[in-house]
């Protein structure tokens, strides 16, 4: 209900000055208002009207009023209705027949305007009007100004088919509606309202300027049909994305300052708008980005002005260069992330296979054990507690990444990675990669070699290759390589040099032994290792190691019979030499230390040289080979024994029989010689017979 406020307006400066409403709407000289720039709309209806700025201050009003004191306007309350009725003096009516200004009249309702059906401009600025009413009869109205009122809903305009300018700024409008008949609308100003959605304007095909600044818009769409729109002001909203702008064939100026746009994708339709030449983004999050300017310039080549500044050729060139660089970088990082993902999946795959293998081995082991002895179990593998420490990450992948990876086959069972100075090998298949042709530069840079998910026994076989191809590798890392015996460290002695050794406890039970580090220091003392598992090696450690195992070395060298030494050392040397001659081929099991590079006097090194490591399979192979020989030896010895026993028996038999035989011989001889003469004759006879 609009309380009938009636006032007698005589004598006060509240009167409207109804002269020369020159509709010049302009400039940024207005301080607190929106920086709206309207196109100059000159509506010179009265040629001899003097122009004055659109919004009059009260003072001006008074001034003007006093100077143009003519017939004044009377707002007379009628007892019949609650609306005041406007009456103008006939003089004024004639003078300003087409315009009426009721600015600052403290109106709370639109008064009934009778007899003014020719009005073309109507000004209700700065009042308290809550509803647009009582103007349906002004069917010739071209411009209606309701700026700064309290209107909550657009209504009551359905008869104003000629309306060209509708100014509803600074009201309380929540929704754009009821503009259906205003097909000639040229300027629609709805700034400073509470509008949340752009709607019901699609029929305004003559609209050139649309001002929706300072509303509550969160997005821009539904702009089709505005075929004449050249300026769209959306400043000071909460816009996050913009659509449909490419459907505006004439749009030249678009103001998006002070919104919530953070990426160019959300305003991507702008790139397709060929008419756009002026755009502002300042006050948006996007304007803070480092790539803002050149991305906008690159995507909107048609722009001439950005954020109220002209775009120079230089800027354009810079923009395209930078944009290209961005593209490159993005492609690069995409590639990187693809690679990383592939790597991760491969490592997971390798880990899974390793676990399966370990469990298979362990279950075989327990089966065998169960067969002959009691509950001997391999405590580390069976209970599944050493399942891979790379849990399957099912976290959200970038969808693009995911699609790309569908194409990659994750059947890879190994991974070889070179990262600066580190060569990482995952899975036993990776060992073959050592055969590749590594460039001297790459190979020379490698100082760290890391083995994961590979059986140590397999690594042992490729250590000679490692020595040759990667001469600068000084740091070895082992993780999940099944190091279980101290003996296995003997195999490392053949390398040229190791400065650091890292044995990850995961998958390497040997680390649980109390003495393992000392054994390593002892066996590999000729390397003068600096660090083991990150801890520095002190002289006391070395002395301790020597103390603990020194006797072992002494025994191993000085107490072995020489032929054994020769066989152990010489054998290995021969085989290594053979390996160097033939570049490929199965490596022998027995691996030994090369003394060539040691700086120490030879005596000290080689006393450990007999401490070797033979992988289980090779050892068993060797034992198999020896079986043949053993069998032969057995039979040979048996034959010898038989012979010896036979001879012995014969000897003993002879011993027993000899006395008897001897007596017989003697008796025979004596009997023969009893008769000397006949014996002499017999002998002579024998001699002649012989001849």
């Amino acid at each position: 209900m609009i309380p009938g406020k009636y006032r007698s307006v005589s004598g006060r400066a509240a009167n409207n000055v109804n002269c020369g409403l020159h509709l010049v709407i302009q400039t940024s000289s207005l301080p607190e208002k929106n920086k709206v720039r309207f196109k100059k709309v000159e509506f010179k209806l009265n040629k001899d009207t003097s122009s004055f700025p659109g919004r009059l201050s009260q003072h001006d009003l008074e001034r003007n009023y006093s100077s143009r004191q003519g017939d004044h306007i009377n707002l007379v309350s009628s007892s019949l209705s609650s609306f005041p009725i406007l009456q103008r003096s006939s003089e004024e009516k004639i003078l300003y027949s087409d315009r009426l200004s009721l600015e600052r009249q403290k109106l709370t309702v639109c008064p009934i305007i009778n007899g003014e059906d020719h009005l073309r401009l109507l000004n209700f600025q700065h009042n308290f009007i809550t509803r647009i009413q009582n103007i349906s009869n002004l069917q010739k109205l071209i411009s209606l100004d309701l700026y700064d009122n309290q209107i909550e809903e657009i209504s009551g305009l359905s008869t104003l088919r000629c309306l060209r300018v509708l100014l509803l700024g600074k009201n309380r409008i929540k929704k754009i509606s009821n503009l259906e008949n205003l097909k000639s609308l040229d300027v629609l100003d709805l700034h400073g309202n509470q509008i949340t959605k752009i709607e019901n304007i699609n029929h305004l095909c003559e609209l050139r300027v649309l001002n929706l600044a300072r509303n509550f818009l969160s997005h821009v769409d539904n702009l089709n049909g505005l075929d004449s729109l050249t300026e769209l002001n959306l400043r000071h909203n909460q816009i996050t994305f913009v659509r449909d702008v490419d459907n505006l064939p004439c749009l030249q100026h678009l103001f998006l300052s002070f919104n919530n746009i953070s990426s160019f994708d959300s305003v991507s339709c702008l790139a397709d708008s060929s008419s756009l030449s002026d755009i502002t983004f300042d006050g948006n999050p996007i304007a803070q980005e480092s790539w803002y300017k050149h991305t906008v310039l690159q995507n909107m080549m048609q722009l001439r002005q950005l954020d109220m500044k002209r775009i120079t050729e230089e800027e354009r060139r810079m923009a395209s260069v930078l944009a290209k660089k961005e593209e490159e970088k993005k492609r690069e990082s995409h590639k990187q992330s693809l690679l990383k993902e592939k790597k991760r999946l491969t490592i997971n795959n390798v880990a899974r296979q390793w676990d399966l293998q370990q469990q298979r081995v362990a279950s075989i082991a327990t089966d065998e054990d169960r067969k002959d002895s009691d509950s001997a179990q391999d405590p580390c593998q069976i209970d599944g507690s050493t399942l891979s420490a790379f849990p399957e990450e099912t976290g959200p992948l970038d969808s693009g990444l995911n699609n790309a990876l569908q194409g990659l086959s994750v059947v890879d069972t190994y991974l070889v990675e070179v990262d600066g100075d580190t060569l990482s090998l995952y899975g036993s298949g990776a060992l073959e990669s050592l055969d590749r042709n590594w460039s001297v530069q790459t190979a020379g840079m490698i100082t760290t070699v890391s083995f994961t998910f590979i059986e140590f026994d397999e690594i042992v076989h490729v250590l000679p290759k490692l020595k040759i191809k990667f001469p600068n590798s000084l740091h070895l890392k082992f993780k999940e390589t099944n190091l279980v015996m101290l003996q296995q460290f003997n195999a490392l002695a053949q390398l040229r040099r190791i400065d650091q050794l890292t044995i990850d406890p995961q998958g390497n039970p040997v680390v649980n032994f109390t003495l393992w580090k000392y054994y390593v220091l002892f066996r590999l003392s000729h390397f003068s290792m600096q660090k083991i598992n990150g801890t520095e090696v002190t002289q006391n450690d070395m002395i301790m190691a020597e103390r603990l195992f020194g006797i072992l070395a002494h025994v191993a060298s000085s107490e072995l019979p020489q032929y054994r030494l020769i066989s152990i050392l010489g054998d290995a040397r021969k085989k290594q030499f053979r390996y160097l001659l033939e570049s490929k081929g199965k490596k022998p099991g027995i691996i030994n230390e090369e003394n060539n590079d040691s700086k120490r006097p030879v005596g000290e090194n080689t006393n450990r040289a007999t401490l070797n490591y033979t992988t289980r399979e090779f050892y068993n192979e060797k034992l198999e080979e020896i079986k043949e020989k053993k069998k032969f030896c057995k039979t040979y010895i048996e034959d010898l024994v038989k012979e010896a026993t036979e001879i012995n028996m014969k000897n003993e038999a002879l011993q027993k029989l000899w006395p008897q035989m001897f007596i017989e011989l003697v008796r025979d001889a004596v009997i023969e010689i009893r008769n000397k003469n006949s014996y002499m004759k017999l002998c002579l006879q024998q001699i002649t017979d012989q001849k």
Partner: protein
Amino acid sequence: MLSPERLALPDYEYLAQRHVLTYMEDAVCQLLENREDISQYGIARFFTEYFNSVCQGTHILFREFSFVQATPHNRVSFLRAFWRCFRTVGKNGDLLTMKEYHCLLQLLCPDFPLELTQKAARIVLMDDAVDCLMSFSDFLFAFQIQFYYSEFLDSVAAIYEDLLSGKNPNTVIVPTSSSGQHRQRPALGEAGMLEGVEASLFYQCLENLCDRHKYSCPPPALVKEALSNVQRLTFYGFLMALSKHHGINQALGALPDKGDLMHDPAMDEELERLVVRSKLHRTPWQHRAKEPGAFGFQRREKQEALERVSSASVPTPYHYRWEPRE
């Protein structure tokens, strides 16, 4: 040499009893394997060396388990070698797990079976948690009994089993190699209130066993002595008693008495020389770390070592010093 009982046996058996054939076969086998190298310096010398090393007990070093186990002499040599090489570990005071001892064994014999070590550990730990730490001397003496008398112990286990379950103790039992100890565990519950078996009965069976079989047994008198103090005993109690018995240890002849276990002056001197030599050859950077080893290793340092290095000539009991090849 010319004793009558020597002639009482047929030749082959005599040789076999003395294990002469084993060594002969092994010697010939080694000869075959290393033909090229040995031919350089002559077969006669090879045989000399071989049998010398057999006498000295160094022939078992780094040999396969089947050979190490083959004769009692080999077993004794192996035990002795193990003691000499790793006495320092014991001297250091470390307690190691069964697996680690097994590793040390494997350093000398690459395919030494785990079960023997496990059985030895069970003796020490009285069949409790097998992952406990053991001291060097405990382990060594238990291991000695287990390794040297392994077949004997298997039979004993079978006998014990039968006694527990109440069978006739005088029946002949010839167990398969390791089934005995596999059976004995669950039977414990059936023994009723009293644990183990009666000592005298048990001893009787053992005596029969020793008489009947040809593999080495501990001297029965000493066994009796070991059993004399107890009324009843368990299997592992019996083994523990055996391992701790000094007489049996001396009868074996492999290891010194428990008190002397850590003493080996000749080796200690040798070791000191090695340590000093290694110290002298440290590269400069290693001298900077003064604090004790950062490995968290509990140990007792023997500082008196340096003073003993004076004597340069140490009488080595072995004739053949290995000369470096180069």
